C-alpha cells in the first residue's frame, strides 16, 4: 500500500500524461484533416491535383480574362505563364484583385473549372505570394516581383 501522498502524485502524473497525450493526438488529427496543398496551374493541368478535394491554386490573373456573370458571379483565368486554369468565384473580390496581379485561391476542381470559395490577394501592391512566385519561376519566368 503506497502512502497517500505518493499515490496522489502518481494519479496526478498519470492525469497530466493523459491530458498531454490527448492534446497531442487531437492536434495531429486536426492537422491531418486541415491541410491544404498548393498546386500551380501547370501541376493542375498535368493532373497532379486531387480530383474532388480542396486545395489552393496560385498564379497571375490573365489579362482580359475576367468576366462577370449574374449577381456576384465572376470567372477568370489563372496562369503561371505556361498553363492556365479557369477559376469561378461567387462573392466580392479583394481590393487588390486585378489583371496581372498574383492571387491565391482556395477551392476544388469541378468539371475542369476551379470553383473557389476564397480568393486572396495581398495588401501590398508589390508583394507576390511566395507560392505564386515559386510557381512562376518553375514555369520558367524570371522573378518579376521586383
Amino acid at each position: 500500500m503506497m502512502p497517500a501522498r505518493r499515490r496522489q502524485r502518481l494519479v496526478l502524473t498519470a492525469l497530466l500524461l493523459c491530458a498531454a497525450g490527448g492534446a497531442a493526438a487531437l492536434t495531429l488529427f486536426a492537422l491531418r484533416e486541415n491541410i491544404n496543398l498548393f498546386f500551380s496551374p501547370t501541376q493542375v493541368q498535368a493532373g497532379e491535383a486531387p480530383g474532388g478535394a480542396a486545395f489552393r491554386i496560385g498564379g497571375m490573373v490573365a489579362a482580359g480574362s475576367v468576366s462577370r456573370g449574374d449577381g456576384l458571379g465572376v470567372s477568370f483565368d489563372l496562369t503561371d505563364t505556361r498553363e492556365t486554369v479557369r477559376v469561378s468565384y461567387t462573392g466580392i473580390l479583394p481590393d487588390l484583385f486585378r489583371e496581372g496581379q498574383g492571387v491565391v485561391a482556395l477551392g476544388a476542381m469541378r468539371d475542369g473549372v476551379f470553383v473557389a470559395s476564397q480568393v486572396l490577394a495581398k495588401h501590398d501592391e508589390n508583394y507576390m505570394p511566395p507560392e505564386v512566385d515559386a510557381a512562376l519561376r518553375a514555369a520558367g519566368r524570371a522573378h518579376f516581383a521586383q
Partner: protein
Amino acid sequence: MIAELGHFALILALVVALAQAALPLYASFAGIPAWMALAKPAARAQFLLVAVAFAALTHAFVNSDFSLLYVANHSNRSLPLIYRVSGVWGGHEGSLLLWSLLLAAWGAAVAGRARQLPDAFGARVLAVMAMISAGFLLFMLLTSNPFARQFPAPPDGADLNPLLQDIGLAVHPPMLYAGYVGFSVAFAFAVAALIGGRVDAAWARWARPWTNIAWAFLTVGIALGSWWAYYELGWGGWWFWDPVENASFMPWLAGTALIHSLAATEKRGVFKAWTVLLAVFAFSLSLLGAFLVRSGVLTSVHAFASDPARGLFILLLFALATGGALALYAWRAPRLASRAGFELLSRESALLINNVFFGALCFAVLLGTLYPLLLDALRGAKISVGPPYFNFLFAALGAPLALAVGAGALLRWKKDRARRVLPKLLAPAALSLAAGLALPAFLPHYSLRAALAFALGCWVMLSVVPVLRAAVPAGHMWTRIPRSLAGMALAHFGVGVFIIGVTFTNAYSVERDLRIARGETREIGGYAFSFHGTAEHRGPNYQATRGEFRVRGGGRDITLHPEKRAYFSQENPMTEAAIDAGFTRDLYVALGEPLGDGAWSARIYYKPFIRWIWLGALLMALGGAIAASDARYRSRAPARMTQTAHGAAQVRA
C-alpha cells in the same frame, strides 16, 4: 544633420549596451561593486540615446526629409501629421527602432526599481537585457539603418501604405512591441536566476509584476490588431489565424501560462524549473515571431519587407538567446528542485492544469504555423494549415480550460476538499447552465453548441463571485480585497466576456455579400438596409466614392457611409467599411465593386456582441495591470541582502 545625430546616437547606444552587457556581469562574479553599479546608469543612458535616435527619425518624418531613404519610402507630403508620426514605425527599419526604444525603456524601468534587487542579481538582469538590446541595435545598424541617405532626394515620398493610415494601427505596434519586448524582462530574470542557481519566492515576486505588465500590453496590442483587421481589411472578420497573428499569439499563450505558474512559484515554491523555462519560452517565441514576420518566409497578409540577410540575422539572434538560455537551463535546472508537496485537489493542481492546456494550445499554434515552413524546407511541398484546424483545437482544448477556471481560482493552496468547494460553485453552475439553455431560445435559431458555449462564458463570469466572497472576511468591505486577487478576478471575468462575444459572433452573425441597386432595400439581421447611391468625396490624400446606406430597425435610423478610396500615391482602391458599433451588435457595410447601372456589390453584415471580444481582452489586460500594482510588489528587499557582493547569487527574501 539631425539624421546623422540620430545615427550617431544609435552607435553610442550600441557601445553603452555592450558595456552594460559585459562589465556588470563580470563584476557580479569578480565582486566589484563599483562596476556592478554601472548597470543602472548605463541602462538609463542607453534609453536616452535610443530616444534621441527615435526623436531624430520622427523629426525627419514630420519635416518630410525625403533624403532619408526610409522616410521617402514610407511618407508623403500630403500625409496628415498624425500618420507622418506613426509612419515612423510603418516599415521594417523604423519599427525595429521602436522595438529597440521600448526594449531600452523596459531596461531603464528595471534599473529604476533595481533597489529591490540584490546587487549582483540586479546587475545580471540588466546585463542580460543589454545583450538583447545590443543584438537588436547591431541588427539595425548593420542591415536596417533607418537613417540611410539617398542622393538626390526625391521631391515627394512614396507614401505610407494606406492600410496603415489609421488610428488603430498607429497605436497597435507600440502596444504589441511593448508586450513582446516586455517579456525580455522575465527572460532576463530567468537567465539571471539560472546564473545564480537559485529561484525562490522573492525571485517570483520580483518577476511577477513585470510579466503581468508585459502580458497586459501584449493583450491590448493583439486586441487592437484584431479590431483594426475587423474594420480596415473590409472582410469583417476579427481573427484569421494568419501566421503573423499566430506569431503574436504564441508569446501570449506562453506568457499566460507563465503568469499562472509564477503564482505557484511565489506562493508555494513549486514548479520552479518549469516557470524559468516558460519565461525563456515566452521571450523566445517573441523573437521567433520577429523572425517569421521580418524574414519573408511566411505567406501572410502582413508581409514585411523580406530580405534573406535580415531573416538570417534574426534567426541568429533567436538561436543565441534561446540556445544560450536553454543550455544554461540544462546545466542549472537540476538545482531548482521544488520540494513543497501538494495534493490532488489544490490550487497548485489547478495551475498545473492551466499550464498543461496553455502549453498544448501554444504547441498547437506553433505546429500549425511552422509545419508548412518545415514541409516546404524539407520536401518543397507547398501546404497551408486552414483556420478549421485552429478553430477545432481551441474549441476542444479551450472548453475544459474554461470549465476549470471557475473551480481552480477557488481552490486553496496545498490541499482542499471537494466538500468545501463544491457548494460554493453550485449557484454559479446552476445559473450559468440555466442561462445557457434558456437564452438562445430567444434568438433566431437554437444551436446547442452556442448554448453550451454561452453557458461556459456565464460560468467563467459568475464563478468570479465566490472567489471574491471567499477573500472578504465576514463583515468586511469589498474594498479590502487585495489588488492581486481583484486583478485576477477581473481578468477571469474578461475571459467570460470574451467567450460570450466569440460565441454570439460565430453563431448569430448574418453576413450577406450581395448586389444592391440604387433605391433597393435589403433585410438583414432584422434591419432594413436601403442603398441611396454613391457620391464623390475628397479626403486629404485620397479621392473616395462614398456610398450612402440608410438603415431602419432597432428603434432609430442610421446612415452609413462606406467608401471606396483611391489614394493619390497608389494604384489600387481601398475599401473603407462603415460600421455602426453597439454594445450588443455591430452593423457593417462595405462596398465591393460597381456592377453597372448604379448597382454595387456590397457586404452587409450584422455582428452580434462582437465588441465583447475586444472588451473581454481589455478587461483581461486591465486585470493584469491591477494585479501588478499589488502592494506586496512595492516592498523593498531587506538592506542586508543588497550589500552582499561576492557570490550574491543567493537571492533570499
